[in-house]
């Protein structure tokens, strides 16, 4: 088979459906990556238009342009869109599109999950967009502090759009994070050990783990606030045992890691592009990886620096102030590693490099003002002033948007296969760069002169007029620059000027393929022996196209790729991907029905959609697996590997592990919230504690023992080629006992609106019921799979996944029941 015939055969196997159908049925990471990127850019321009409206309003004192009600919606939506609908999805798009190419794989771990995540983002985002257009958008700030965002401050539907729409979008972030984590750990080129991974993969891995642990607090907060708004469960109402500070803790427990979730991918882009632009390798790869990990870990210890003015004791503030300043150390290591990289290389000022230099000049200022506001007394003064607005734009625009523009110009030849013909990009850079600093540099000063954030206008004679006018004028220059970038990209993508295959002479694998990339990425999969695989053998692309790598022979029309051992990169199985399907889109649509039901208070829609989701999910997992043992297969070069369905830890097992990590974080935050209210909220203890009954305690202990034991015995029975029926029956009984205990937790407090404790108990009970219900469903699925011949001694991956979920359900049931009844037993 020659290269061209191989290309045709693989294209036939991997291509998305033709025409408009392809948009809805594609599960290809390149297609979905492009869709993510495109939609994120659309939201960037929508958010940008809102920013322009803000600057138009603030250009002159007492502007009649808009009133406070409209202005509040606009600044709330500007922040919300830029954070949730632009920055995070842009990272997801970048990772979805590039990671398999950088790692030498043909797709991500769970292609249908990629599609599901995209559609959740698209549907959730459109809820918020609808609210904006209809003039009922959230208007209590992107931080949504109750009581202002609760029924007391906002009786209308506005905050519900935020709480429900953003949670829907976060489903997409969690999906993408699970996907990216498993892909980086398992879906790499043969021989790509962790220390040979491209630096961007390290950053994406850390970012994804941060999403998995950073987003759950916000999802929990949104859930609690929506329960308070919809059903009067008083988590944040002080008279009934709640505390508005709980929201602030949950929100910033998410909100600060969020800043680094946005910055780290950008840092990964710089660490990737900058060495290429300087014709050298990254200085201190190991240091940079450790610094990025340190940044990720530290970012979870500094959320309180958004709350310096809430009256927290000074000793606690000292701790968080120290942690906040400490964050500057790993950031400093990276910045100086980059500078050192330029010094040791021969830098060329191509357009991506120009944006990186712009990044340095901007982000360093943002970092320095960041250190300033980490100093507690200074923050007491500038908190909630324009100084902070300026600071955060220096960090986010300088630290994220500029590197992303570098990435755009660096990878555009790869995505389009074209050379840049028109050189509008340089002009656009200068307009954006000068416009940005003109807008935000003096804004620090007007903040020091006392201009608060979020005021809709100001009086003449306040001393702020000149600076605000300057800001507004330059902001329009910046906006023109961004539009010019857009025109530049569109024009250059449209002009047929074919470019060379590796225009920057980079050493990473994504350039070892034809450009624009084919649907299958690599005609055969590379064997990697160094960090810069392409630099090590410059004819790699040709050899891969000739089929000299692994899996070069298309087999039975299957979409195949390799998985590897996490640490060493030794290949250990062959994955067969699912084909094009509309299932993810339909499932996201039905999920949207559930969120919509909550939004418009049509609660009958929620269980209906729930049943739909279960049906689709069962269909989703049923299509996986085989009814007979297929045995080891030829992966090329004499390497015989099993299919991933015939190993003990299939990708789905790893996916479940990381999904459970996010889930456990959610549960941990719930327990934190409970402990916080108990110790800090003024109106505690509640009128009555829940009283445990012995049968109920017996049920939870029995269930927590029978469930995990049953599933283990079932797996053991299959291993010995026996019937798992009895053991699965025991598992069912165990799960049923756990459901009973969950119900009794719920019933112990008849009225969840009486006190925050009662409401908390309901959430604990609901959480137990959800997970034990899920465990029963999964056990039932296993029963059906066992009956139809999908389970065999060599095919136990599914059962081991179910075991994870049953163990988890047992653990959280025990913890939730103890947390509910311990105070009653102790007092």
């Amino acid at each position, binding site marked *: 088979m020659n290269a061209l015939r191989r290309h045709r055969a693989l294209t036939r196997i991997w291509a998305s459906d033709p025409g408009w159908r392809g948009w809805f049925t594609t599960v290809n990471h390149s297609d979905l990556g492009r869709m993510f990127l495109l939609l994120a850019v659309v939201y960037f321009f929508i958010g940008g238009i809102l920013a322009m409206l803000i600057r138009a309003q603030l250009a002159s004192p007492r502007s009649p342009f808009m009133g406070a009600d409209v202005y509040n919606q606009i600044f709330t939506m500007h922040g919300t869109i830029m954070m949730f609908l632009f920055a995070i999805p842009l990272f997801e798009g970048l990772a979805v599109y590039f990671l398999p190419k950088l790692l030498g794989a043909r797709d991500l771990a769970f292609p249908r999950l990629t599609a599901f995540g995209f559609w959740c983002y698209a549907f959730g985002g459109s809820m918020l967009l609808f609210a904006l257009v209809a003039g009922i958008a959230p208007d209590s700030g992107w931080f949504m502090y109750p009581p202002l965002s609760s029924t*007391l401050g906002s009786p209308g539907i506005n905050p519900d759009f935020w709480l429900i729409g953003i949670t829907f979008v976060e489903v997409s972030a969690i999906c993408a994070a699970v996907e990216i984590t498993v892909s980086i750990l398992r879906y790499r080129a043969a021989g790509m050990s962790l220390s040979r991974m491209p630096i961007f993969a390290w950053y994406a891995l850390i970012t994804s783990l941060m999403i998995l642990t950073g987003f759950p607090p916000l999802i929990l907060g949104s859930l609690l606030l929506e329960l308070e708004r919809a059903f009067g469960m008083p988590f944040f109402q002080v008279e009934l045992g709640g505390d508005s500070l709980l929201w602030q803790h949950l929100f910033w427990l998410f909100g600060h890691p969020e800043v680094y979730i946005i910055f780290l991918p950008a840092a990964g882009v710089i660490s990737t592009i900058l060495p290429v632009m300087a014709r050298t390798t990254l200085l201190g790869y190991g240091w940079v990886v450790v610094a990025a990990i340190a940044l990720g870990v530290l970012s979870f210890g500094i959320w309180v620096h958004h709350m310096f*003015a809430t009256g927290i004791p000074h000793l606690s503030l000292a701790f968080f102030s120290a942690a906040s300043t400490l964050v500057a150390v790993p950031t*400093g290591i990276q910045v100086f590693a980059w500078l050192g990289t330029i010094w040791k290389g021969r830098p060329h000022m191509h357009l991506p490099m120009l944006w990186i230099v712009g990044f340095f000049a901007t982000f360093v200022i943002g970092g320095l003002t960041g250190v300033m506001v980490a100093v507690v*007394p200074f923050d007491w003064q500038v908190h909630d002033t324009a100084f902070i607005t300026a600071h955060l734009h220096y960090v986010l625009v300088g630290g994220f948007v500029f590197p992303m523009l570098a990435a755009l110009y660096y990878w555009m030849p790869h995505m389009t296969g074209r050379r840049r013909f028109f050189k509008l990009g340089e002009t656009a850079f200068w307009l954006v760069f000068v416009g940005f600093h003109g807008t935000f540099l003096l804004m620090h000063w007007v903040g*020091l002169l*006392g201009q608060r954030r979020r005021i809709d206008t100001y009086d003449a004679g306040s001393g702020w007029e000149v600076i605000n006018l300057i800001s507004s004028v330059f902001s329009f220059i910046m906006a023109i620059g961004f539009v010019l970038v857009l025109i530049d990209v569109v024009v250059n993508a449209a002009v047929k000027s074919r470019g060379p295959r590796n225009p920057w002479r980079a050493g990473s694998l994504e350039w070892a393929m034809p450009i624009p990339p084919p649907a299958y990425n690599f005609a055969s999969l590379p064997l990697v022996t160094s960090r810069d695989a392409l630099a090590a053998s410059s004819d790699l692309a040709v050899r891969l196209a000739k089929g000299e790598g692994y899996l070069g022979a298309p087999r039975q029309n299957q979409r195949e790729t390799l998985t590897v051992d996490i640490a060493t990169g030794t290949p250990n199985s062959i994955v067969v991907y699912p084909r094009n399907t509309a299932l993810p889109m339909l499932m996201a649509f039905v999920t949207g029905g559930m969120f919509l039901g909550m939004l418009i208070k049509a609660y009958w829609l929620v269980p209906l959609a729930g049943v739909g989701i279960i049906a689709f999910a069962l269909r989703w997992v049923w299509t996986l697996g085989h009814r007979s043992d297929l045995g080891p297969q030829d992966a090329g070069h004499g390497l015989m590997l099993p299919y991933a369905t015939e190993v003990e830890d299939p990708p789905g097992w790893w996916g479940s592990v990381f999904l459970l990590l996010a889930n456990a974080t959610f549960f941990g935050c719930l327990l934190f919230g409970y402990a916080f209210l108990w110790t800090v909220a003024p109106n505690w203890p509640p009128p009555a504690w829940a009283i445990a009954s012995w049968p109920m305690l017996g049920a939870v202990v029995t269930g927590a023992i029978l469930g995990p034991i049953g599933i283990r015995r079932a797996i053991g029975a299959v291993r010995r080629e026996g019937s798992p029926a009895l053991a699965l029956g025991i598992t069912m009984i165990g799960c049923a006992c756990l459901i009973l205990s969950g119900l009794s937790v719920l019933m112990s407090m008849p009225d969840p609106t009486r006190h925050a404790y009662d409401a908390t108990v309901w959430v604990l009970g609901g959480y137990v019921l959800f997970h034990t219900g899920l465990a029963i469903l999964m056990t039932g699925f296993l029963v059906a799979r066992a009956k139809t011949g999908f389970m065999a001694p060599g095919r136990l991956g599914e059962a081991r996944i179910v075991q994870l979920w049953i163990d988890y359900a047992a653990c959280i049931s025990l913890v939730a029941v103890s947390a509910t009844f311990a105070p009653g037993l102790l007092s």
Partner: protein
Amino acid sequence: MSFSILTLLLLSGCTQNLSIVHPAGPAAATIATLWWVLLVGAAAIFVLVMVLLLLAFRVRNANDSSDQEHERRWIVGLGLAFPVTVLTALLAYGLVIGEHLMPRAVPELVTVGAEARQWAWRFTYADMPSFETDGVLHIPAGKPIDVQITSVDVIHSFWVPRLAGKLDAIPGHVNVLRIEADLPGEYDGVSAEFSGAGYRMHDFTVVAHDAESWSAFIAGETP
């Protein structure tokens, strides 16, 4: 350059009612000094980084030093040791100031209460239990004041920029802020926590009295 000229212009020319850099009390003065220190330090570091960046494009050292050498110089020296030194000093400075600004027990302390609501301020006085004022807080000049801050509806924030930093008014909690005005006069205060449609106008005035008029005030004569 143009920035510093503009700064001078703005510093001298305009009204200063809410300005952090025109302090009129000890707490605000300490923080204003802190700001100038931070500005000078940050500017120095920024210039250093920019010079290093510019030189990277200009200087081509012929004797190629090894990667280890580069790592030692750039990452261990500039990336690790330099920020750790600077930040430790800064952190200590900030904590000492912060500790100094805490509402500790002192003689001659005057205690007042500030209760925020959408969109008004009500003030009470420990020396006159049944007396309250709306929108105007009376204090003696030259004496430390503890303001006990709370809210009856949503979250607000008590902020008199020329006297001290801000502190949130949170329903169900009472936060204590130490303020002091050096001289008698009127000082503008605002809420600095977004609170909905009336946020911009959620302001108040602090009137600092000289000793004589303060004794008249607490004696229940004209405020």
